[in-house]
């Protein structure tokens, strides 16, 4: 687990990319992890069904915030319907190293919120689907 706290995770945690809010997002979603209180909100701007811009805000652990930050970097230019289908592995590939089961939901929170935004309804936990 100590290996998780790699430099680039700490960097995303302390310097989250795409942090903030969009002035007039086309879709937006927000959720929290009831088990730990971590929160993520994601705003998307769309252009013909394609994600043209993205911002997120949140509070929480390095794992949830860095995962969300890395996720926002990977979706710009993607079609919304593809975003809705992103598998949990996409997050795990982003973070690059093993996540213990107790922290899985920290890692998945950003993806859950992103899917909720894309689907227009509350998505389930990606690791449970």
């Amino acid at each position, binding site marked *: 687990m100590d290996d998780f706290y790699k430099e680039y995770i700490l960097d995303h945690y302390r310097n989250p990319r795409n942090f903030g809010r969009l002035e007039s997002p086309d879709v937006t979603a927000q959720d*929290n992890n*009831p*088990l730990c209180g971590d929160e993520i909100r994601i705003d998307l701007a769309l252009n013909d069904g394609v994600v043209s811009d993205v911002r997120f805000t949140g509070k929480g652990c390095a794992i949830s915030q860095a995962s969300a930050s890395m996720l926002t970097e990977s979706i710009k230019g993607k079609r919304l319907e593809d975003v809705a289908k992103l598998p949990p592995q996409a997050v795990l590939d982003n973070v690059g190293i093993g996540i*213990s089961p*107790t*922290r899985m939901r920290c890692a998945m929170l950003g993806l859950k919120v992103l899917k909720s935004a894309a689907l227009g309804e509350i998505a389930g936990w990606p690791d449970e689907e």
Partner: protein
Amino acid sequence: MIAQRLDPKLERVIDDFPILNRKTSRGKRLVYLDSAATSQKPQCVIDALTEYYSEYNANIHRGVYEIAARATDAFEGARAKVARFVNAGEPAEIIWTRNTTEAINLVSYSWGLNNLKPGDAILVTQLEHHSNLVPWQLLAEKTGAALRFIPVDAHGLHDLTNLERLLEGTKLVALSQVSNTLGTIAPLERIIPAAHAAGAIVVIDGAQAAPNMPVDVQAMDVDFFAASGHKMCAPTGIGFLYGKRALLDAMPPFLAGGDMIRRVSYEKTTFNELPWKFEAGTSNIADAIAFGTAIDYLSELGMDWVRDHEHAVMTYAFKRFKELQERGLLVYGPNDPDLVADVVSFNLGDIHPHDLASILDTDGICIRAGHHCTMPLMEKMGWPATARASFYIYNTEADVDALIESLLKAARLFKL
């Protein structure tokens, strides 16, 4: 002591229960014929508790560290086992409760108070356990709904003659799948579709069914199903409510507190998802996990084997009871092993069941005596009390023989 022609599987089962291999204070073999009140526990279930408390005791869901994760997995894993055991659609449809009673109260408070109004009716049967009667009496009182009864006949069989009329205006039907006093198996295949056709939901008190026969909540199409772990090899203090997700989702929480919330401010609270919405405060973690072990144990035996075994013992018991008819033994209920599950009620001459139970106790035989939490049934039938023997996976024909012998002794003592 135990007859030698025992099936090796049964012999192994008996070996699994440490209490059955002890002697009473009078040096007698324990002949436990009160499993309908609470079952004995196999060593593996006791070991599951010891293991939890000695190796990974920790509070669940919010713990990051190793033993908390192991406890959470075991706890939620046990829920999944129960879900599979009764064939629920998903583990989230299983709510942990203390026992059947709490499960029924949960439905009565959370569904009942919010769905019933004057003019509606609640339909139960005349042979319900107090736990499946008193909550509905109180609910009827609070909501102004009427409480109606499916009658039972002199043999303790359900009389469905007027079922359709009784169902008019009925919003909730609550009945036990197996009667704890007479063993009667309810004709659910007739009642449930009729109830649904009339627009009522169906709550099954499965306290005596879940331990003794295969249960499939989806095949039965019940809306709620309640049972107690302690009657099915699990520890005391843990039971469950199965509910269809759509119903549970629409219900407000019952108990409030830690774990059942999603977000709390000083002013306002939003609630957690199923099943946790209904599980406030620290759960009975160890006993839930050990309930999972009990489910494994029963599943390995096979619930068909359990039913067949009990059927065989009951068949033998009914046969031997016949021999005592001339001494004044009166057996109540359907008196047919095909129509009953694990219990049989009786009286011997004018010996009061309490006296009978005391006499049998001196021979190491444990039976129950009294009203069995079915006072209104007893009153209707005109029995002040009955003696009750109930059989489970570890009981043998030798236990029946011991019972008969001790009954004969009681008859002699009372000069019958």
